[in-house]
């Protein structure tokens, strides 16, 4: 399966080709990412959308080379800065991680170290990757803190994570991630643990910083509402694979894969008639996709056809720039 390749004149920040990641569980290999391809042009945002367990976080961890010990990249290429991240040494990766590619996680409370001040933690990233003195590092850190609109940065610099609200902690995470001006930022559900107002603030902040610094973003989420606010391109993942991939407006105005449509339908949203039931996707993500023959979504699909139970659809371009893996469109 040759994935979506960008033909635009802009250069690509990252180009992932046919990535396969497996986990060995009780000496069995389970596929967590099964032939995923995508690329992100410089300064743009691609969102990976899907339910828990569909492999979106594992894709991110594969790029960061932060898989747990039983996880291995079994195939494919991750092209970044002329290197294949799937095959470089751990030492080379250390130079890239936190420097050229950095990541923010869902729960800032768990990602920050509770026994160091936030200033200390931000400076660590700068001193590790940039050739500056401690004093210069502190200046850079303070400058970034005011950029993410943290009030009284000099005072906050010496505070501990528990003294801050969830939104403030996530801003600190963003500072740590962006302080070395990475080419790519991976944001794994960065707003899921936050309430709606803080979420809107953080999304705004990410868009502003992206415009200013030209960082590309790989944004991971399960909420199509959040994704609409921030993305240029959207890839929908289901059961370890990308099932639909398009430019954001195209995908939202013209969703093609039955799973994408179901994701739109089941969203609780404003303006729904009271008394009308929410449409829910029956069932849940399959625990072992290998046990399902044909299209992995067929047991939950409302348009299922006979051939869906035997033939596994490939990701194909239906209209320009819009790819779908569904037999309906063949």
């Amino acid at each position: 399966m040759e994935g979506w390749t960008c033909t635009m004149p802009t250069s690509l920040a990252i180009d992932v080709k046919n990535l396969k990641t497996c986990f060995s569980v009780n000496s069995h290999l389970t596929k967590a990412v099964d032939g995923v391809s995508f690329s992100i042009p410089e300064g743009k945002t691609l969102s990976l959308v899907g339910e828990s367990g569909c492999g979106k976080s594992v894709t991110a961890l594969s790029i960061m080379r932060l898989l747990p010990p039983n996880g291995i990249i079994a195939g494919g290429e991750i092209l970044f800065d002329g290197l294949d991240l799937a095959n470089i040494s751990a030492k080379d990766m250390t130079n890239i991680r936190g420097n050229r590619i950095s990541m923010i996680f869902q729960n800032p409370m768990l990602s920050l170290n509770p026994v160091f001040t936030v200033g200390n933690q931000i400076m660590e990233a700068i001193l590790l990757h940039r050739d500056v003195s401690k004093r210069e590092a502190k200046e850079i850190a303070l400058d970034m803190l005011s950029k993410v609109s943290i009030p009284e940065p000099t005072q906050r610099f010496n505070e501990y994570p528990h003294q801050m609200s969830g939104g403030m902690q996530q801003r600190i995470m963003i500072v740590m991630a962006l302080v070395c001006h990475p080419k790519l930022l991976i944001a794994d559900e960065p707003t899921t643990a936050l309430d709606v107002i803080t979420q809107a603030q953080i999304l705004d902040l990410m868009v502003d910083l992206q415009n200013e610094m030209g960082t590309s973003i790989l944004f991971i989420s399960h909420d199509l509402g959040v994704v609409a606010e921030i993305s240029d391109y959207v890839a929908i993942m289901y059961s370890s694979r990308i099932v639909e991939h398009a430019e954001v407006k195209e995908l939202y105005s013209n969703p093609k894969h039955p799973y994408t449509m179901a994701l739109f339908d089941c969203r609780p949203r404003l303006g729904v008639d009271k008394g009308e039931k929410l449409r829910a996707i029956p069932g849940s993500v399959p625990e072992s996709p290998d046990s399902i023959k044909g299209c992995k979504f067929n047991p939950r699909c409302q348009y299922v056809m006979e051939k869906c139970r035997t033939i596994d659809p490939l990701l194909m371009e239906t209209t320009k720039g819009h790819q779908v893996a569904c037999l309906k469109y063949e």
Partner: protein
Amino acid sequence: MNNKALVNVENLKKYFPIESGVFSRIKGYVKAVDDVSLSIGSGEIVGMVGESGCGKTTLGRTILRLIKPTSGNITFNGTSILSLDKANMREMRKHMQIIFQNPYSSLNPRLTVGDAIGEGLKIHRLANGKTRISKVKDILDRVGLPYTYAEKYPHEMSGGQRQRVAIARAIILNPQFVVCDEPVSALDVSIQSQILNLLIDLKEELKLSYLFISHDLSVVEYILDRVMVMYLGKIVESATSEELYKNLKHPYTIALMNAVPVAEPTDKRDKIIISGDPPSPVNPPEGCRFHPRCPQVMDICRKVFPETISISPSHFVNCHLFD
């Protein structure tokens, strides 16, 4: 207030003392719930909406007397629950239950699902042995889980399934009133609607009343009969769901609504989003508590606390804009 109300809360206050030093001298109070009155009718779903830290969870827990209030009165079916002794309160707990936000931390990892659900029956000596097992199986079926799940442990289940177990545990004693504390915000969007539908079905079948706590106005719109918006321990707007969503009044409610992500990509973001975090509830601002963040702040807002104003018989707001 309404006499037929199932739950009636009057002037409820919960102040948490802040202690310091070896003698635990009290140096201040966190005013988590500050003079809240509300009533919930039989079969009604009332929503409590606000940001993290506004006191909505404390309010939910205080109504169930899981936390002892500082002052105020709570009646349940006409009985004042604050004056009940331990034994009577335990009896009363059968009728009032709670579903927590995070199904990963609210279930005991060492209990099987069947034991966790049946625990209430055991404590209240309602069913034993085979009857208990069959009751647990009935309730599993009702929340849409196969009865074989009674043997499973929480770690073997997904988030949505765990939340179904938490719901089963809450309804097995046939309560009249359930506090749902953000029951869907830890779940995937696709699972959220399954759980919301389940909660509505159960409400119809079992004639339940809910206090539904949430931070997201879009999630609760279609499930609620009445909405109350809370900010820093106070209710700032309350109305029937239909009325509120058509006619937002309080600037804070409008801000909450603006912050809801809409699944429509647009070129520019022109929504007004209020900045900063809510001020500390230890030292809430003078006058209207929302004034430091309010886009429409006036002089009077900084000095005078706004009284409740009736926009219509079913719509109340605390804001000087409508004086």
